């Protein structure tokens, strides 16, 4: 029983890690722009197709990793440059629709010019290996995911805490005007945030592609939505909250899969979404946020 629980916890954290990476990226860009980036999943989609293209010419998995991450960063910054900067400071409504629209245009571009159906490519050979630690059977991929995520999150934390650009992002997320007053340039801070979000999504893409080995125009859709929900659960704009939200979401999802009868396995996402919607009846401001007095 205990062993099973630990195993589920590891599975849950493995899944939650991906969500946490995406949620943190979504939280970062939300912090500096007050925009929920529904196009965040497209970073995964673009990376997946680039990875697919490179496996076609026979590139090894280890070489793919930096390329995927670099692609994701470049795509993230590029989307900011061509699209999101036009709605800076616009209404919530315009920004939400902007990112929703970008999501569609990118996806439609793939359907029209690349491929409407999914393309599979080889996954690394060790992916399904397992190791046994004190009775707990652990998949290598889960260990890899957790290690990589922890390393990435620590790295991101170091960037946010130790570098002046990271401090500027945090400053701008808290109070954009004051950050500007202290000499922080808005272009710089917004693009840094998008680059960092791209990095995180790139790592998430690597982890996801290792598991699925498949590129499709809609590859990033569900991961994006999970990331957004995790950020929302953690309380929008709170970066630690986003990470915690992602991990919680992963653990809960794995628990649901193991508890629910097999017939509803395919509906787990749907059930999670409905549960989250119902959660807001009782915690309308997110799970982790305490009620803050509204200043008038």
């Amino acid at each position, binding site marked *: 029983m205990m062993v099973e629980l630990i195993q589920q916890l590891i599975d849950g954290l493995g899944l939650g890690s991906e969500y946490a990476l995406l949620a943190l990226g979504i939280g970062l860009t939300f912090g500096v722009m007050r925009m929920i980036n529904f196009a965040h999943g497209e970073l995964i989609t673009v990376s997946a197709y680039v990875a697919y293209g490179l496996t076609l010419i026979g590139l090894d998995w280890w070489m793919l990793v930096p390329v995927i991450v670099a692609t994701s960063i470049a795509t993230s910054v590029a989307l900011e440059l061509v699209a999101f900067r036009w709605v800076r400071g616009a209404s919530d409504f315009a920004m939400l629709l902007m990112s929703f629209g970008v999501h569609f245009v990118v996806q439609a571009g793939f359907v029209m010019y690349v491929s409407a159906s999914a393309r599979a490519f080889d996954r690394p050979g060790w992916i399904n290996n397992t190791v046994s630690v004190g009775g707990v059977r652990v998949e290598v991929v889960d260990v890899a995911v957790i290690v990589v995520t922890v390393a990435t999150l620590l790295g991101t934390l170091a960037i946010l805490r130790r570098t*002046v650009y990271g401090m500027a992002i945090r400053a701008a997320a*808290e109070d954009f005007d004051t950050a*500007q007053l*202290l000499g*922080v340039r808005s272009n710089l801070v917004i693009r840094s945030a998008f680059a960092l979000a791209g990095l995180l999504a790139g790592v998430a893409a690597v982890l996801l592609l290792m598991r699925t080995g498949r590129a499709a125009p809609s590859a990033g859709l569900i991961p994006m939505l999970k990331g957004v929900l995790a950020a929302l659960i953690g309380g929008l704009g709170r970066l630690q909250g986003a990470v915690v939200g992602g991990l919680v979401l992963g653990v809960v999802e794995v628990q649901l899969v193991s508890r629910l009868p097999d017939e509803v396995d395919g509906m787990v996402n749907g059930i999670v979404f409905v549960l989250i919607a119902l959660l807001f009846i009782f915690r309308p401001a997110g799970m982790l946020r305490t009620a803050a007095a509204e200043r008038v």
Partner: protein
Amino acid sequence: MLTLDRVEVGYGSVRAVHGASMSVPEGETVALIGPNGAGKSSLLNAIIGLHAPRGGTIRWRGTDVTGWSPQRMLRAGVALVPEHRRILTGLTTEENLLVAGILTGGRARRRLAAELMERFEVLGRQRSVPAGLLSGGEAQQLAVARALMSRPSVVLMDEPALGLAPLMRSQVFELLGELAAAGTTLLVVEQDAHRLLEMASTAYIMRSGDIVASGPAGELAEREDLFEAFLGNGT
């Protein structure tokens, strides 16, 4: 010399400043006083570039700096200590200082921050504390120290003693005195008119978006109608 020529400021339908002209000679302390809503903060925000003025020109050392961004103004040597201090509460004391030094090189930035934390002892002692936990007086010192991170020639101060206890107010005025003695040019907005006029060389009085009086600070301090100017002249 920082000079303003018929500067107009407004947001949306609000006309906050109707055409203010003033000059701040280098090395001096200039006082800008007047009741709430007179347009003093709007004027300072227009100088630093948070809101571009709607009309008029702002010159700094002969260059037309109207509509410059805060970053350019900081580079040119003008800094603002904003109203309500605007401390970044999610950052530590030290991080507040470092962000404010973003325009200077990495090594110089750390050295300057270390210097300032030595000079402002309370800040040095609480360098790793989230700045949201600082007391009002400490937060004000941080706000001033933050402005000094860009090594400014002119510091614009918007109500530095706002909301502070009397003892803290005195400390803030001592700090202003030290800055002035060190040769920093100051343009100060403050409610505590008597104290401010004591240390200023020149003063301007604003009311309802206009500069209604100006002159040597000592003379203005003697004027009987000063109190009336603050509180409305018997309509």
